[in-house]
């Protein structure tokens, strides 16, 4: 047997008779049984009396915020898969960290969780926790009478934990059960029942005998071993990750065209969801970059991406683009009433130098801009292609971009069938012009 990992300079400081002290001893025995050295173990502890555990051992240790122990442990285990990570929390941590418990069960990450379940918040005055029986007298007045206590093993099993055990802190097999839990490759949870002499048993009857009796009367959770058996999360993660191709670096766009203008030019695309407004804006930026111009694209759409307006504001300029908003667009593409409604004020203030390409049937506010109405439908263009068609239309006149720039943008953005279809739309418009 390897030496004890107990910190001789910092012996347990629990109240006399506290069950936690037995758990400390059993955990040390489990470590010894496995022949582990302190540097092979990380103890991650929660808040409350269970939060003192890390100080009693010569191991790696992290003591953090209430209910969050499993989150730190997950980060440590993903970065250091060879470490044995043991998490201690009480029935308090269980409640406040409920979402983390459920997710850890679902992940099946190789952590060992010791729940030091003593049915109340010992450190703050014996208030009720998520495991307090309704008939108990606790520091929360009548409130525990209103809540059903949680059987953590049933909950964890339902959430996908494969290795679960309920055990009394007085069980002679406790160390062996801990060792089995630590050796298990996956998430293992021990629900360890014990007495809190400082608070709980002052007003409630609970003894090693009554604990053993209660535990014996609970339904078995052994079925979850088979039901939830699966590959450990970290191992699975690394297997999936190893099969992934490396991410492509951001695409550098070589300059191969002469821009149609060098001064700042602003284009506003006004459409609706499904019209590929954002993609058209991106194409215009790519076209600009292919002519050595700076470009920016600022989009506006609701969070429901399949419904409502879609507005894209694109700026092209030889010089750095300062302000990314648009005051005086050179071109407006008005393709859907939803987008037009979002920019009514801007439209009303347009001057003669602005060209508005307007899809047939869309009402524009009165303004002085040159408006050109296009019946895309009659031209045989499907609505999702109107924005691209409108870009082709301005490129055909060498306004903002030219056909060669647009062609390069399409080559950069699309491949295969999608590229072919996009090219067909552009050609249809350019031939028509």
């Amino acid at each position, binding site marked *: 047997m390897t030496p004890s990992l107990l910190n001789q300079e910092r012996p347990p400081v629990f109240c006399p008779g506290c069950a936690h002290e037995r758990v400390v001893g059993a955990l040390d025995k489990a470590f010894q049984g496995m022949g582990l050295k*302190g*540097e092979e173990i*990380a103890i*991650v502890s929660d808040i409350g009396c269970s939060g003192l555990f*890390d*100080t009693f051992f010569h*191991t*790696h*240790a*992290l*003591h*953090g*915020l209430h209910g*969050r122990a*499993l*989150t*730190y*442990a*997950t*980060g*440590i285990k*993903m*970065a*250091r898969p*060879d*470490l044995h990570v043991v998490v201690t929390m009480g029935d308090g941590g269980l409640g406040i960290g409920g979402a*983390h418990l459920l*997710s850890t069960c679902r992940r099946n990450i190789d952590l060992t969780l010791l729940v030091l379940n003593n049915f109340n918040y010992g450190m703050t005055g014996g208030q009720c926790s998520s495991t307090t029986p309704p008939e108990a007298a606790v520091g929360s007045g009548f409130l525990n009478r209103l809540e059903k206590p949680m059987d953590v093993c049933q909950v964890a099993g339902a959430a996908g934990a494969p290795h679960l055990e309920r055990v009394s802190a007085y069980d002679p097999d406790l160390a062996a059960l801990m060792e089995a839990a630590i050796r298990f490759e996956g998430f293992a949870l021990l629900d360890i029942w014990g007495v809190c002499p400082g608070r709980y048993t002052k007003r409630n009857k609970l003894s090693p005998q009554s604990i053993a009796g209660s535990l014996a009367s609970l339904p078995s959770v052994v079925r979850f071993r088979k039901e939830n058996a699966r590959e450990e999360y970290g191992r699975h*993660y690394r297997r*999936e*990750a190893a099969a992934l*191709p*490396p*991410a492509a670096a*951001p*695409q*550098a*766009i070589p*300059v191969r065209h002469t821009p149609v203008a060098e001064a700042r030019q602003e284009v506003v695309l006004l459409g609706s969801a499904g019209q590929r407004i954002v993609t058209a*804006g*991106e194409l215009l*930026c*790519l076209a*600009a*970059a292919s002519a*050595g*111009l*700076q*470009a*920016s*694209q600022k*989009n*506006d*759409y*609701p*969070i429901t991406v399949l419904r409502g307006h879609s507005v894209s504001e694109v700026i092209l300029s030889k010089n750095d683009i*300062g*302000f*990314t908003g648009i*005051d005086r667009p050179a071109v407006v593409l008005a393709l859907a009433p939803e987008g037009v409604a979002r920019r009514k004020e801007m439209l009303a203030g347009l001057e003669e130098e602005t060209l508005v390409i307007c899809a047939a049937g869309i009402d524009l506010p009165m303004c002085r801009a040159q408006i050109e109405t296009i019946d895309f439908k009659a031209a045989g263009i499907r609505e999702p292609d109107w924005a691209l068609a409108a870009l082709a239309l301005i490129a055909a006149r060498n306004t903002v971009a030219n056909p060669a720039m647009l062609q390069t943008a399409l080559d950069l953005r699309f491949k295969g069938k999608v590229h072919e279809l996009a090219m067909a739309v552009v050609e249809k418009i350019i031939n028509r012009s």
Partner: protein
Amino acid sequence: MALTLMEGNEAIAWGARAAGCRFFAGYPITPATTIYNAMLRYLPPEGGVCLQGEDEIASIGFCLGASMAGWKAMTATSGPGISLYSEQISFAVGSEIPLVIVDVQRLGPSTGSATKGADGDIQFLQWGNSGGLPVIVLAPVDIRDCIVLTLQAFNLSESYRCPVFLATNKEIAMTRETVDLEAIALPEIVHRRSADAQAPFLPFGTAGDRLVPDFLPIGADRPVRQTSSTHGPDGYITADPDLIARSQDRLQRKITAEAHRFTYFEADTVPEAQTLVIAYGVTARAAQTAVQALRADGRPVDLLVLKTLWPVPETLLREKTAGYDRILVVEMNLGQYVREIQRALPGRDVRFLGQMNGELIKPRQIQEVLEP
């Protein structure tokens, strides 16, 4: 020259990768989600880890664990998420855990508007965690800054063992822009200083007049202690008032004493300007456009763009504002950082222009304030 088209969030992910970030965890939230998307593309194929937490508290908790295990880590969120980070931020501050935290600000308060920009968290980032110790907050203006300041944020978090915030904004994060990646001079990469293998290890011990403890990861060949409780150099709880006071003082001074080393800014000046505009973040771009327009109109106006917001660069503010008759602070909120500038410049004519309606402040609005 070859230009690359990317949005601010992608640029932050690119900068993080260049900084050696190996761990990212986040909870999806507009307008920060695309940082998570990009990290998920970059990290796993390279042996790094990208996780989606069950909530923001878990996400930053994963990062704290991974950082203590020795990996460079980053998380990203927006207003509602940064609020949930609060307790974990104070852990990172008090227990000296390196971490980069991106706050892609959106219009608040509360859930506010997911797709509208604002700079409404600027005071919250400094004061939104318990204990009141200083933090470092950097504010990018454009894509180039998103890359360079992310690298600086990692370097600072490693050098000073602390969380470093990037205070960005939906209007930078989700706006696509061209950038010449080859033309960007990247800072040298810094790693946290490892503890001497021969000397006894104290997890929070500092030798001589050093202010930052040397690091060993959880998982090293000697046991390492980390705790969120008030601790002494050995990482155990202490109640010794002198020890506590020394430690608190060190946590404060390690950030403030060297703040001049990471006071990032840009100044654009012309002779004879009597007015100085101070701005940060996306609003600096409107200010730049306004200042150029005013100059073209024969009115010389200068611009100071702050890229380090916290600790407040008070010395820089005093130096760079000397001699101006009036100072105008422009920011996308109802007047948060202007308070710091007024505090640093008592008795000076410091005016404010702000807006909190989800729209960018326009260059025209700034010009109108400055036209006599």
